[in-house]
């Protein structure tokens, strides 16, 4: 099989699909030309991610990584969510094929973009280095 059972489970039964109305933070990353777009919406209460929902245009692993990323940050304080790495998403999914790793990077970036949006809206100061830009993905270079 191309994908692990965990990936297939999150692909077939994605968790937290949808869009939170009046979200406190919204992040959208990727582009349609590359074939992957992820959108995350967050509800934040007292610095805790009380709810998160996603929508994704992309392949099986793009949907599965988005779903897993939402599970990993739901109910967590923002400080902890900011520590989310694409490796953590990959490990939680029992691995991804090498050429699908960019999907996990996108999932990490979507979470962070949504948190950054929350900080920006509320005038909260942050270290800009915390937020990676998806510009380093070779798919978008062409």
């Amino acid at each position, binding site marked *: 099989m191309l994908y692990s059972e965990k990936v297939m489970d999150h692909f077939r039964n994605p968790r937290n699909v949808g869009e939170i109305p009046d979200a406190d933070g919204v992040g959208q990353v990727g582009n349609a030309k590359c*074939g992957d777009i992820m959108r995350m919406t967050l509800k934040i209460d007292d610095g805790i991610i009380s709810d998160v929902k996603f929508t994704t245009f992309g392949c099986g692993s793009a949907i599965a990584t988005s779903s897993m990323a939402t599970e990993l940050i739901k109910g967590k304080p923002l400080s902890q969510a900011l520590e989310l790495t694409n490796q953590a998403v990959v490990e939680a999914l029992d691995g991804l094929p090498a050429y699908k790793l960019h999907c996990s990077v996108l999932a990490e970036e979507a979470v962070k973009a949504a948190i950054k949006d929350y900080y920006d809206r509320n005038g909260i100061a942050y270290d800009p280095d915390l937020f990676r830009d998806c510009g380093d993905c070779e798919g978008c270079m062409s």
Partner: protein
Amino acid sequence: MIYMDNAATTRTSPTAMRVMMECMEQFWGNPSSLHTPGQKAAEVLEQARADVAAALHAQPREIIFTAGGTEADNQAIQSAARLGRKKRKTHLISTAIEHHAVLHTLKRLEQEGFEVTLLPVGEQGIVRVEDVAAAIREDTALVSVMFANNEIGTIQPIAEIGKLCREKKVPFHVDAVQAVGQLPIDVNAMCIDMLSLSGHKFHGPRGCGALYVRRTLPIQPYIEGGAQERGKRAGTENLPAIAGMAAALKESCANMEANSAKMSAMRDRLIDGIAQIPHSALNGARSPRLPGNVNFCFEGIEGESLLLLLDDKEIAASSGSACTSGSLDPSHVLLAIGRPHEVAHGSLRLTLGPETTEEQVDETIQAVKEVVEYLRGMSPVWKELQEGVRSYVIQ
């Protein structure tokens, strides 16, 4: 399982399997050996050659057995290029939608100093004969055009291009891997000088193919090491596969008219059903098209997800999305017919076989509708399209 991926490979026909078993049980000798077991095997080999030749209206000695369509394409193109270079002809012509067996071979030759012209095919996915005529030069060593495209099924004007190449005295190679066994082919009437075919596309075994080479055209071996195949392809012949392929081809040709009529009707039903999905479009001309080929693009979704969910519904299909190719770019064929990247990612190829039933077609239409709707429901791109933030490419 509803198998809708016959362009990838076909189910091996029971006739072919029986012939292969017989061959392994009774004709296991080496056709190059002079003893009786060897000569019995040689007879089977020559009968297979005659059967394959008859299917193309060729002569038996014009058939070289290879290890598949890819090898046949490689041999035809590399041989024509090398022989051309001896006469200072270093220009090669082909189309933008060829199989990678042709395109990658041409790319390699380009690196070795050949000049390659890849002709466009327009939205319809069909090369224009005028464009071929305009591209031919004094130093053109080869024109190579596929009979029918493997992704979008469009049939190319082979007889017209053949006539043109004959007039201009340029060798003409045809990659007919998708057409053999499905469409009538006459290498003489169509002025084809070389033609590649592959056994597993017409219910024969894989790892076996053939190259037709007109007897007046010189051909260089691609694999060296023995006198088999009149010195044009070394290596002990894969006789069980060759015999199985010949049997499958004979069977396909005998049933061609009936199968073609039946498959075309199923194809049209499938196209009409899927076309009801909003913002979907058939890729490539509806006609002339292979009797079993259906290929659609859907806005707002990605092809690999579509395939995996169809597989869950027990429908085997294929896609031209980047994610299914292991590269970042979607199908070169869909890009060549003008589909933008974002739409090319959302493609679905369904290729029917002679056994495809009306019930299977209807079940597939229903499944595709459900899966497309589901994936659009969770797609931020679809939402933007609906909200007018992004414009539809397919109306």
